[in-house]
């Protein structure tokens, strides 16, 4: 509990971030928040910017290899963020990353995912990988909510381990679902466009 407050406090001090809900009210319902990925702090910042009752049911999806290293990261992943850890390097049928995500959804949790699969290099987000489409198709009742996260990469650029304070922003858009008869590519394009619009970036 204490470590949770400390982490949230630290994120506030560093980024001053408060979520701006422009397309949806912060309701307590099951959702998949999907965001652009610019920094290792992204998941933490989105998680910390949610109202506490939403934060309690929302689990960031994060890379297994990164969050199981050392002593601090596994502690934070397990006891603070309650992260859903997925394999991203040696994906087999056995450790299919979708399985733990679907299990978390079935247990009633909301998720925070980064559908680009990696951190974006330049200004524009990469094309979405198909994972988000699988989630939308397999759990059609869960709303998908686009999120744009800005300026957090300057707090902790790739390769740095000491953060600097920098005001960031988290913008939360309108919920969407997989439309009937929508193709996979069509859906991936539409979801990415919704996310890019929030950030004022051309899709």
């Amino acid at each position, binding site marked *: 509990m204490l470590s949770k407050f400390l982490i949230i406090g630290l994120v506030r001090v560093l980024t*001053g971030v408060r979520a701006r809900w422009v397309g949806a009210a912060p309701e307590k319902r099951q959702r998949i928040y999907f965001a652009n990925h610019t920094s290792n702090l992204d998941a933490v910042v989105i998680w910390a910017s949610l109202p506490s009752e939403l934060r309690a049911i929302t689990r960031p999806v994060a890379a297994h290899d990164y969050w199981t290293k050392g002593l601090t990261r596994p502690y934070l992943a397990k006891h603070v963020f309650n992260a859903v850890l997925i394999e991203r390097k040696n994906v087999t049928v056995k450790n299919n990353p979708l399985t733990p995500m679907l299990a978390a959804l079935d247990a009633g949790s909301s998720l925070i995912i980064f559908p680009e699969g990696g951190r974006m290099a330049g200004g524009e987000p990469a094309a979405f990988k198909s994972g988000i489409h699988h989630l939308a198709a397999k759990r059609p009742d869960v709303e998908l909510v686009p999120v744009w996260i800005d300026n957090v990469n*300057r707090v902790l650029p790739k390769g*740095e381990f*000491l*953060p*600097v*304070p*920098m*005001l960031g922003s988290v913008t939360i858009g309108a919920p969407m679902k997989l439309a009937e008869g929508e193709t996979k590519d069509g859906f991936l394009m539409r979801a990415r466009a919704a996310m890019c619009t929030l950030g004022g970036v051309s899709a």
Partner: protein
Amino acid sequence: MNMDDDLMWMGAGVGGVLVIASIIGAILAKTAKTDQARATIANMNARTGAWWVMVIIFGGALAGGRTTTVVLFGLLSFLALREFITLTPTRRGDHRALFWAFFVITPAQYYFVGAEWYGMFSIFVPVWAFLFLPVRTAMAGDCDHFLERAAKTQWGLMACVYCLSYAPALLSLPIAGYAGENAKLLVFLVAITQMSDVLQYVWGKLFGRHKVAPLVSPSKTWEGLIGGVLTASALGAGLWWATPFTPWEAGAVSLAITIAGFCGGLVMSAIKRDRGVKDYGVLIEGHGGVMDRMDSLCFAAPVFFHILRYWWV
């Protein structure tokens, strides 16, 4: 902190002004007719509400003593610098230098103010930080726009940290016959700069015609500037009893404070205009960011400090 009668009267005066502003705001909110008027009044009332919070925090810190006051201004500098650097495009190569600026130089500057080490706090940022930071940036190896980036980090530290730290440093000035009463100088400085901002806004809204620098700030007019500066200086002269000054001296010093404050607002507006934003942040409701409220104080504090130190110490 020595809670003498003068300080109590100053506190009561500030509270009285806020009570009157709150009552007027509540009446205007009921009587406003047009949407535009309602929006203006709502913003004004949000500002008054934020003023209550700021005055309570400032008063609490002052009542807590010199250390809590220094810590409060240190936190304000941290928040102001965070806003400033956010608006300034920096690169990967600046990261380590920025870490130093935030977590070493800023606390050190306020430590020297707290330790009353004038010889150090008055040169620490202009000399030591100035020499050290570009070295750290050069070591990172990225030479693109090097001079610009080094200058921006230094400028942010000078404005947000160094200049602002002169405000709590007032508490350490050894003025003959005024020992233990310096808190009133800080209240005087903050009250005059902030009243000057408010009065310039009011005079500008009522009579503003000729813009001082239309390309920098459309809301700064000669009528607002002259009216605000003169009324705030008159107010300062009327507060002579709380200061080591005669009424005429209090008026003249207030004039210097208010003009410096105006210049601070103008320069910070130019930076905002350059970056294409209206406010530095959203932390204080109705006002914008910390830097939007502190801009005039950044310029006025060192001017006031050095006037005092030269002629009264």
